[in-house]
């Protein structure tokens, strides 16, 4: 039971909006100590895992390219393109992206899009451009539109990728069940398809409702 103390620290840290880095370090130390690990062992295993997980930060090598293109007006161009498209709305744009992200993730093409590569330079400014056409000009609702663009990317990946055969989570499930003597063919894991359809319909419905809300606000 006492090893759960780390989780308590984390929840408190996030709730109080403290800087998460020291909160995580303290949570790790408390959990390790509660489990009877020596301070040096905790430090070593934390450092080892931090080093092994560098690959999650590798995506940031694209930042110089994205920044350079922003310097030459990429975001402005993305906004102008949407403004010139007749009938483009935030909802329709994000729904099209959702479908694109789900379909490409379903065949395993996870890293061809994402927050650094496509959401910041292209999708978010396009969504803002469309929202502007629909009458959203205040900074606060515009920030919410940007947040929704990032959220749509997440929803698309999460409820698309599990259809693919070689993705990490499917291999994990297959391996885990094998450990219990349950053999399954990865193909039978396509149980994720109905869930993916639900994700498209439910998130898509939210996006359509947003369009309707924006249209109403404009008429008023």
């Amino acid at each position, binding site marked *: 039971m006492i090893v759960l103390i780390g989780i308590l620290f984390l929840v408190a840290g996030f709730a109080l909006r403290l800087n*998460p880095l020291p909160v995580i370090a303290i949570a790790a130390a408390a959990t390790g100590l509660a489990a009877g690990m020596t301070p040096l062992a905790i*430090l070593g295993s934390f450092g080892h895992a931090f080093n092994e997980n560098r690959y999650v930060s590798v995506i940031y090598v694209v930042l110089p*390219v994205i920044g350079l293109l922003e310097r030459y007006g*990429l975001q402005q161009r993305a906004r102008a393109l949407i403004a010139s498209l007749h009938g483009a709305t935030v909802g329709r744009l994000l729904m099209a992206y959702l479908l694109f992200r789900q379909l490409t993730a379903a065949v395993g*093409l996870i890293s061809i899009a994402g927050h650094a590569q496509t959401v910041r330079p292209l999708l978010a400014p396009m969504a803002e451009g469309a929202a502007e056409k629909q009458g959203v000009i205040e900074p606060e609702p515009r920030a919410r539109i940007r947040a929704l663009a990032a959220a749509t990317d997440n929803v698309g990946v999460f409820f698309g990728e599990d259809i693919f055969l070689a993705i990490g989570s499917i291999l994990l499930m297959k391996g885990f069940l094998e450990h219990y003597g349950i053999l399954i063919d990865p193909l039978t894991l396509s149980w994720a398809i109905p869930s993916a359809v639900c994700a498209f319909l439910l998130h898509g419905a939210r996006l359509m409702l947003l369009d309707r809300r924006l249209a109403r606000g404009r008429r008023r």
Partner: protein
Amino acid sequence: MIGLPFVYTLGGLMFGAYAIAGWRDRANPRRYANGLFWGLLALSFLAGDRLGDVGNGVLVLALVAVAAPGLGRGVPATTTPGERQALAVRHGNRLFAAALIVPAVALIGALAFRHMPALIDPKQTTLVALGFGTLIALIVCMAWLRPAPIAALEEGRRLADAISWALVLPQMLSALGVVFAMAGVGEVVGGLLGRALPHGSLVAAVLAYAIGMAVFTVLMGNAFAAFPVMAAAVGVPLLIQGHGGTAAAVASLGMLCGFCGTLLTPMAANYNLVPAALLELPNRYGVIRAQAPTALLMFVANLLLLYFLAFPR
């Protein structure tokens, strides 16, 4: 063979350049902190494998100590919104073509490199392809737009300073997950949930498994950490062996319940906190707020799919 070390070297050199430029940026009142932070990260990328486990632990503590009081933001020279408007008109849709080089090379590389195991590490094809895509895009942009030679690095530093310490959060949280696993946190949570369950009821077992997956994922930030625990505590013994559920359906719909938890938690930093920083949202939890309704609806959907599709009736 080209593998992760190539991409790490690329990242290390990039962070190293941010460190030097950040240190020298007099417009940033916390320039020494920024310089140190990016410098330590550069050290981690370039020499992490030679530091040893405790050495890496000390490096992490140093990163935390530098970042805890907060980092500043560098002020690299860049174009004004007005200039960008004019440049956007001049360069037109070719800007999109340039922006699509990275994803296009990542895609082609990920597919092609699988057939070159002698040349490219077959386990790391996507990340290597991403590295190549970045280099090619940089070369094309430099040749086409002809910015000052250090412009790309200064622009990269501008974005990196916007993300700030959130950039290392995902790595920190995965490391915390490893410590949790060593301490047996999962077994304790699984045991608690298993004991709280009334015997024999399918509805109760399905609820415990689905809610357990979501809650545990919220705590750990990762459905992959929750799955083995919840599947061992409830999924396999009760749902599959006890109630004759289809193993593949129980596993995959349970995992998807976990993904709903991922959408709701700051612990999944690379999906939820980093994009909030990257998009410069005023609220750190803005992305979580935007996707929470979808996450809750999807949780109900997955719960119902699990209950109605996975069991013989």
